[in-house]
């Protein structure tokens, strides 16, 4: 439907072809990009970066979130700092990251980490606060202490409340990575966008944008969608 409308608009010839390519042209760019393997390579590089960045921010974010939840003093100090840092757009970390790590892979992954880590930390903390105290009482009464309580009661009980934060973290990480790749030119999908701009190839720009959006949707539906469906089935929550 949208594609038809797009084609119709294109046929009106309001804007010049190089600014407003037809769907067919974009499709051509897509086929070409996948054909000469520039797109798959760029996707692979970006996905590798996001997986590392997101993975690290989940681990660190959970760890920080648990600490903040557990220790009042950490909450009062780092807790409010994190709240402040979360409002900072993660791309603002790029200059710092470049100075720390130099022009390399680490710098760009660092930006992706910074994009996700704070929202994951906050989500971990608040999802633990959301656990009905009864589950903790029961867990302790059944002999769970410290780590067994954490892994067998607190984490599974917090998971339903944690998922939205995890999703938010994902989209923050993905956006920061794209922004980072745009500014700091070193392969990846964001870089392909910039190449398109430099070559004045509007159809490539739109093709890459479509690829980026498709990846986001696919991750959301396939990865998070499955986890959420699993939780709904177990807990008996409504869709």
């Amino acid at each position, binding site marked *: 439907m949208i594609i038809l409308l797009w084609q119709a608009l294109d046929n009106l010839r309001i804007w010049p072809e190089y600014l407003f390519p037809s769907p067919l042209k974009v499709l051509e760019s897509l086929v070409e990009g996948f054909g000469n393997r520039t797109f798959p390579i760029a996707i692979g590089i970006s996905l590798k970066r996001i997986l590392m960045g997101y993975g690290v921010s989940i681990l660190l974010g959970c760890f920080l979130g648990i600490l903040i939840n557990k220790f009042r003093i950490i909450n009062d100090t780092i807790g409010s700092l994190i709240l402040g840092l979360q409002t900072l757009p993660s791309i603002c970390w790029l200059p710092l990251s470049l100075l720390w790590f130099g022009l390399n892979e680490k710098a760009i992954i660092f930006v992706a980490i910074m994009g996700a880590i704070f929202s994951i930390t906050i989500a971990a903390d608040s999802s633990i606060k959301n656990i009905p105290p*009864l589950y903790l009482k029961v867990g*302790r*009464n*059944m002999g769970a202490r410290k780590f067994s309580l954490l892994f067998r*009661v607190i984490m*599974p*009980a917090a*998971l339903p409340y944690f998922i939205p934060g995890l999703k938010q973290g994902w989209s923050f990480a993905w956006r920061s990575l794209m922004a980072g790749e745009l500014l700091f030119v070193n392969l990846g999908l964001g870089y392909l966008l910039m190449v398109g701009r430099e070559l004045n190839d509007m159809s490539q720009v739109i093709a890459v944008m479509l690829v980026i959006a498709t990846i986001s949707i696919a991750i959301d539906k396939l990865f998070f969608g499955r986890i959420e469906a699993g939780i709904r089935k177990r*807990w*008996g929550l409504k869709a």
Partner: protein
Amino acid sequence: MNNGSVYLKLENVSKHFHSSNGCLPVLEDINLEIKENEFVCIIGPSGCGKTTLLNITANLEPATSGTVLYKDKPLTFAGPDRLVIFQELGLFPWLTVQKNVEFGLKIKKMQARQRKKIADQYLRMVNLIKFKDFFIHELSGGMKQRVALARALAMDPEMLLMDEPFATLDAQTRDLLHQELQKIWHDTKKTILFVTHNVREAVCLGDRVIVLSAQPARIKTIFNINLPRPRQIESHGLMELVRPIMEELKPEIEKVTRINHE
């Protein structure tokens, strides 16, 4: 009738809650001994501190004064030797029925095969073996009670502390569970402290029924129930014992109503 050793001993136990309106005495001067394999029911008007008393014996909250001894030793943390079945049960929604029953055994780091064997045994005892792969939200209220019971029994505790476990069930399910609990108690020889506000339930289940007064809760009267088991809740003999306990309880319920109106 019961010559077992004393499991739980409460001496001059009091509990006060401090709030902005001052000090509210909840429990006062509770003295109580519970022997091995005894089934003791505590009864009192709602909100009188029954649950607080149970929490103190489970060591989930401290007493303000007095001593609580378990097997002649001061209470340690609420360990798996005294398991609580809470009013709202607290079954884990992320686990299946069987995994719920295995939970405590897993904490104990028991082998998977052994865990499964024990879980099977107790799920059979509470007639839930067919539902072992169900999730908690797929069960009825009575079935959830049974899971909670199986989960506690699987840990093989010395004592069960039950906090109005059947209060939210319909009468039919409750009667059925009374029968099952009596049988389980008979078969497993557990010591049970059972809190309820239902007099007939208390008489049906207990060796002794302890009536608490209202605000602050003191032990008002202790009734020994010497009816043969298994007991039927509608039986004539049981109803005759219910009446005097009702008489004891009535003024306390009225007292609570009066206080709440002021």
